[in-house]
């Protein structure tokens, strides 16, 4: 089975896009392999052609471009942890990258691979939703940027066309006064898939919660935003009553399931509690 898989190893992005265009829908991209190799081992991998992106050094970067943090598709979690730009512009992504798997996984796994994999439990995906990040994708037809909030279209399904690949993730720079938070609840810190994961972005001034964005994982078929709770609490006086209301609203709005890692009841409660903890820290 493994012997029947062919691999193409493009050296440039353009060569990769040409290969992708020729084999649209019939090939699988390979980056760090931390999801793909597990699928191969489990027998869930059926593709006969792999396009190995790992030699595309032009896509392995983390940089600041005026008002955006730009993370190249081949940047690993370890690259994120070493980048001063990430520390400055997306501190919650640092918290997250430190808890993805363990060192060996962080050394190989890429943020773009997680985005393409589109797991509802993907640790960094709520961050991208809460930050209104853009997913930059390219094909021989050109480049476009899809909002993270429009990228995850169904269970493990994305807005990528068959001939497209992710080239970068673009995160808008923090606005004045914005605060960020990320929290995963799992069985242990290292090497565990989340029971519940939340990313938060908020601005509070003079006791008022000006704006909030909530990204949640393990709460439905895709990572998602919770617009009802966001609208309910934005612009309100940030006091105990509001925090309790926010907790109840989020617990009701998320739609988790019972599975082998946790129960829906537990997940709802934890989501509400994490939000309440964050809001309390803003007062």
């Amino acid at each position, binding site marked *: 089975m*493994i*012997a029947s*898989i*062919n*691999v193409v*190893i493009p050296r440039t992005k353009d060569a990769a896009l040409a290969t992708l265009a020729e084999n649209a829908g019939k090939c699988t991209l*390979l980056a760090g*392999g*931390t999801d793909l*190799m*597990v699928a*191969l*081992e*489990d027998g869930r991998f059926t593709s006969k052609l*792999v396009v*190995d992106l*790992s030699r595309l050094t032009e896509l392995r970067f983390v940089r600041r471009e005026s008002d955006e943090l730009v993370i190249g598709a081949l940047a690993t979690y*370890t690259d994120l942890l070493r980048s001063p730009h990430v520390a400055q512009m997306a501190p919650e992504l640092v918290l997250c990258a430190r808890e993805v*798997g*363990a*060192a*060996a*996984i962080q*050394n*190989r796994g890429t943020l773009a691979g997680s985005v393409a994999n589109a797991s509802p439990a993907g640790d960094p995906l709520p961050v991208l939703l809460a930050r209104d990040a853009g997913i930059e994708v390219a094909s021989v037809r050109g480049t476009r940027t899809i909002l993270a909030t429009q990228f995850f279209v169904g269970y493990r399904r994305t807005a990528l066309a068959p001939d497209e690949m992710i080239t970068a993730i673009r995160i808008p720079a923090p606005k004045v006064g914005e605060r960020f938070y990320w929290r995963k609840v799992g069985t242990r*810190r*290292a*090497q565990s898939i989340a029971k519940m994961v939340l990313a938060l972005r908020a601005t509070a001034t003079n006791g008022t919660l000006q704006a909030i964005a909530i990204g949640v994982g393990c709460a439905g078929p895709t990572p998602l935003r919770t617009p009802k709770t966001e609208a309910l609490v934005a612009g309100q006086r940030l006091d105990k009553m509001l925090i309790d209301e926010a907790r109840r609203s989020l617990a009701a709005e998320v739609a988790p399931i019972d599975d082998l890692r946790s129960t829906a009841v537990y997940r709802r409660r934890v989501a509400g509690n994490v939000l309440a903890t964050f809001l309390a820290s803003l007062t």
Partner: protein
Amino acid sequence: MKILLGVNGVSKTVEVAPMRRLLDVLRLDLALTGTKEGCGEGECGACSVLLDGVLVNACLIPICQTDGAQIVTVEGLSNGAALSPLQRSFVSEGGAQCGICTPGMLVASHALLNQTPHPSEAQIREGLAGNLCRCTGYTKIVAAVQKAAATP
């Protein structure tokens, strides 16, 4: 696919399927059985090796990604029969019992000490968080790494 790679400083050429795991090439094609297979899916760290100096799980690396690379396995840590200070600490502190996790623990500890020569206990536990041990309860492994770090 023809792959040229350095293993513990020795050049090797193998002709294998491109998606074959580095773990299998090491153990089966190159007869370096120090690297172990526990889970086969990145969870246990028994297959830890260095790829161009970076800690990876050999069960998650397709061989096509190693063409031109330098690999270090547990066999490369000692100088023939002469154990490294880190290996000697594992022996003296009782950091190995059944031994199945030990090659991975050694390689991961080696990678940690390369990067952080004097790690705190928390840094050791974080650096070894991807390596599972059913026997020791970890305490003696941590002590072994601490001792190696303190050895000049």
